[in-house]
């Protein structure tokens, strides 16, 4: 009797430890990456990193200020178009999407979400760069919007579906029109979740590199217009990292550190909103 109980408890314990080890193995890379970045990026992590333009090879100092601005510009443009489009499509799917057209949209959005990002970059190149005959922020933003939008559409839809039918019925029973119920009651009820989805999608596009290679191109100086080549942190990290110079390698680490810092801040904000505003 005792032996059986003991064996059962041992088995319980062993499975628990096994699962915990797996979970640990999953989060381990994140901490290794953070530690490694801090270790190697710390040397170049000075104030000038975020205030100065890049310096030529061999000249010490210099920063990635133009890349930070460029990344924010491109992401901002992608979001300015992507949020209204994505949220409204999500509303359509959740509130009105019963027919064949909606199923087709849902399927296409999932397909789009699965398209490798480099292909979206080539698409941006064909759509913008070739006809305009130059690389530009517009081209980069539209490539990133195609990564941004599917996530926003599906999270908006999912979040609206978690709003109980009783909330919609309560509003309709007060004689509130359906469109107002949708926009001002249902969407408001789900707004924290929708915002979280938007932030997570933003964190995702900020680090995208491949689509920018074909669209933004990069720029050593301050951007001069949205129809001009534009710098971005991931591009700078990429260029510094593949260069043969040691001080540029250091800058690549520092740039990566800034990038992951931004992503962490946004993801943390998203988690905070999801938790607190429920």
């Amino acid at each position: 009797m005792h032996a059986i109980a003991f064996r059962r408890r041992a088995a319980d314990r062993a499975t628990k430890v096994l699962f915990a080890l797996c979970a640990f193995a999953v989060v381990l890379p994140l901490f290794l990456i953070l530690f490694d970045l801090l270790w190697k990026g710390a040397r170049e992590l000075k104030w000038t990193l975020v205030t100065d333009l890049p310096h030529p090879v061999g000249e010490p100092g210099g920063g990635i200020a133009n890349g930070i601005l460029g990344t924010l510009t491109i992401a901002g443009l992608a979001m300015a178009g992507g949020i209204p489009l994505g949220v409204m499509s999500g509303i359509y799917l959740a509130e009105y999407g019963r027919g064949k057209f909606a199923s087709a949209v849902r399927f296409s959005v999932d397909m789009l979400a699965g398209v490798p990002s480099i292909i979206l970059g080539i698409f941006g190149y064909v759509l913008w760069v070739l006809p305009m005959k130059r690389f530009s922020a517009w081209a980069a933003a539209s490539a990133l919007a195609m990564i941004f939008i599917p996530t926003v559409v599906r999270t908006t839809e999912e979040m609206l579906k978690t709003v109980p039918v009783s909330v919609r019925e309560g509003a309709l029973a007060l004689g509130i029109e359906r469109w107002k119920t949708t926009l001002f009651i249902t969407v408001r009820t789900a707004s924290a979740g929708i915002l979280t989805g938007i932030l997570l999608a933003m964190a995702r596009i900020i680090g995208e590199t491949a689509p920018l290679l074909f669209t933004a191109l990069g720029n050593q100086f301050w951007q001069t217009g949205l129809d001009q080549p534009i710098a971005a942190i991931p591009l700078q990290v990429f260029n510094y990292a593949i260069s043969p110079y040691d001080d540029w390698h250091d800058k690549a680490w520092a740039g990566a550190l800034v990038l992951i810092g931004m992503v962490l801040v946004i993801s943390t904000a998203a988690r905070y909103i999801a938790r607190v505003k429920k």
Partner: protein
Amino acid sequence: MDNALQVKDLCAWFGEHQVLKNITMDIRRNSVTSVMGPSGCGKSTFIRCLNRMHDLTPGFRVSGEVFFDGRNIYTDRIDPVLLRRKVGMVFQQPNPFPRMSVFENVAVGLKFNGKKRSRSEMADVVEKSLRMAALWDELSDHLDRPGTSLSGGQQQRLCIARALAVEPEILLMDEPCSALDPTSSARIEDLIEDLSDKYTIVVVTHNMQQAGRISDSVAFFLLGELIEMDTAAKIFTNPADKRTEEYITGRFG
């Protein structure tokens, strides 16, 4: 007699499944009508027909007539939105709007119904509605609390206040007390009695004592049919139909 609602030969289907069969009843103005019957007999379906809450349910279909103010709500070009402002509804589960304060919950119907109102007019309506729902004394200092942070009984009274704020003529209540403890449910009962001077109330209930205390008339439903409708006294002491008697004496249902 002055009728608030007249239902004639109302039938209702979910897909192929007929849920209401030829319901005919008159609902007197400023009276309390209880709808009773075993689970699944179509009580909710019936009262939701009275303010067209089924409009968005796929596969739902009605036939027959429901007259409100002399007009058939299903044919005479009635705007369901306007109808629902006149025929309010309180649901079985309290459903205050999440992420809205007590004040906003009560004001929301007015806010979205087109007419512009000043902040102070709004505050007056909110106070009046909360008073009618016997909630003002408890909550006058907590109007900015989230509606969902109230107790179940308070939430249900908040939903009643919310419905009253748009000044309906008829109030439909689908088992408003079923999720509540006896004290809260007694308060709602008092409330219904108070409101019955000014409003026409149709209330679904499983509680016979309650129905006996509050109703002017009781309608007994069985399997989608209206078996009989009469004064509470008559239904509970001397029902005309054997099935009603079996139900109220607890022999089935």
